[in-house]
Structures are given as C-alpha cells and as structure tokens.
C-alpha cells in the first residue's frame, strides 16, 4: 500500500426517512462505502448491523406523534478508525441508559428487548450519546 492510499479518508452522508423500508437504502449505502473504503466484509457487517439497530429503534419509537421525519447518518472512514454520526429529531432517548438484556434466561423468558443496542455497544469501540437542542446524536467509533 502506498502512503497516498493510507492517507485516504472517505466520507459519506445519507438522509433516511423514518420508515423501515429505508433499511434497503441503508444497506446499499454501506455496500458502497464499504467498497470505496476497502472494508473487509466483517467490518461492513458490524457497521451495518450497529446502524440498523439504532435506526430501527429511532424509526419505531422516536416519533410517537407520527409524520415524516429525517434521520441523518454520516460516515467518516479513516485508515485506522471509522466514525458514524446518527442524528435525529426524535424524542429524547439515551441508548446507554437502556437496560441490558439478560442473556442467561431460558427460551420461555427470553425477549429481544435491548438486544440491538447491546450489539452496537459490543461491536463498537466507542459509543457516545448527546442530547442536542433538536434531538439525539449518537457517535460510534470502530477501530480498525
């Protein structure tokens, strides 16, 4: 790899509506940036999964008043770290305060409540939440 390639930074932004069928565009977005940034399959999978989990939460619970809302996702891919910023104008929700799932329960008692956020926390090296003037901001960082 030449020095020039190592210095490469890729940036991309996508604005998604609060509808589950927008996940189609989310996957296409990560396919594209994954190819452009030379991500291994595993990294692409982990980034996509973490974002889907947070996005699905926001779509399902962020806008109890209904209506169309935009969620902005930006990716910055550097040689050693990938940073994601997810911003919405939904109701205040701090994923870090969400109760962790009990993985030891048996089949009858298990639910998937909290599992998505647990995945994102586990797959990322840093998970930052900020309540902004207009909504929520989550920053995820994954060291490569």
């Amino acid at each position: 790899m030449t020095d020039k390639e190592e210095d490469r930074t890729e940036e991309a932004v996508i604005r998604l509506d609060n509808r589950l069928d927008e996940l189609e565009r989310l996957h296409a977005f990560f396919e594209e940036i994954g190819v452009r940034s030379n991500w291994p399959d595993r990294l692409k999978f982990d980034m996509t999964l973490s974002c889907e989990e947070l996005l699905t939460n926001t779509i399902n619970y962020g806008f109890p008043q209904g209506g169309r809302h935009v969620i902005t996702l930006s990716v910055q891919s550097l040689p050693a770290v990938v940073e994601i910023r997810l911003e919405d104008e939904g109701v205040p929700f701090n994923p870090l305060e969400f109760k962790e799932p009990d993985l030891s329960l048996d089949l009858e008692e298990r639910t998937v409540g909290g599992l998505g956020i647990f995945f994102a926390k586990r797959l990322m090296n840093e998970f930052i939440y900020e309540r902004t003037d207009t909504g929520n901001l989550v920053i995820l960082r994954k060291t490569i």
Partner: protein
Amino acid sequence: MIIVTTQREGAAIMSIEGRLDGQHAQTAEASFLALTAEGNTRFVFDFSAMQYISSAGLRVVLVAAKKVRSMQGKLICASMNEQVRDVFEMSGFLSILETADSTEEALERLKA
C-alpha cells in the same frame, strides 16, 4: 429477502434468503405463522443463503421457537454462515435454540 418453503419427510423447511432485518421481519413471521396454521409442527429454518440478520430477525426466530415449543413440535436452525452465527452467539440464542450444520442433518434429527 426471499422465503422458499419446502415440505420434506414430514417437516417444513423454510429457507430465508438475503437479509432478515427490521424491514423483512414481519413478512418472515407471517410466513412461519401461515405454516403453523396449516398444521406443521416440525420445522427446519435453512439459513444457507442468509447474508444478514439483526435483532429484528432474531425476534422472529425466538417467536417461532416459543410457538413450536407450545405445540410440542421441533425447530432446528440449519446452515448459518459465520457472520450470522456470530449474531446468534452474541445474543446468547445458541444456548436456547437447536442448530445443525446442514438441512440434511436437521432432517435426520427430526426423524429421530
């Protein structure tokens, strides 16, 4: 996501191809429930062509496993690829679900 359903040796094989995510989970759940409504109690979920699963997809598998248990039937999840398997592993589901390396192996076990 595409779902292909096959009946073989008294079992219903549901092959879930592509992505079992928040967008497709409801469709997959409806397909499974339709099979139970037809009287099926023994299931193989064939994941050989599944590229991706998220917690919304795991929820469908959990709902199915609970339903099958209430019917005193059996469900085996077969042929997960490595990344899909890791999601099951992370969730702790591998210890509460029955899995097999292939559909053939799952069918053998359902016969027993």
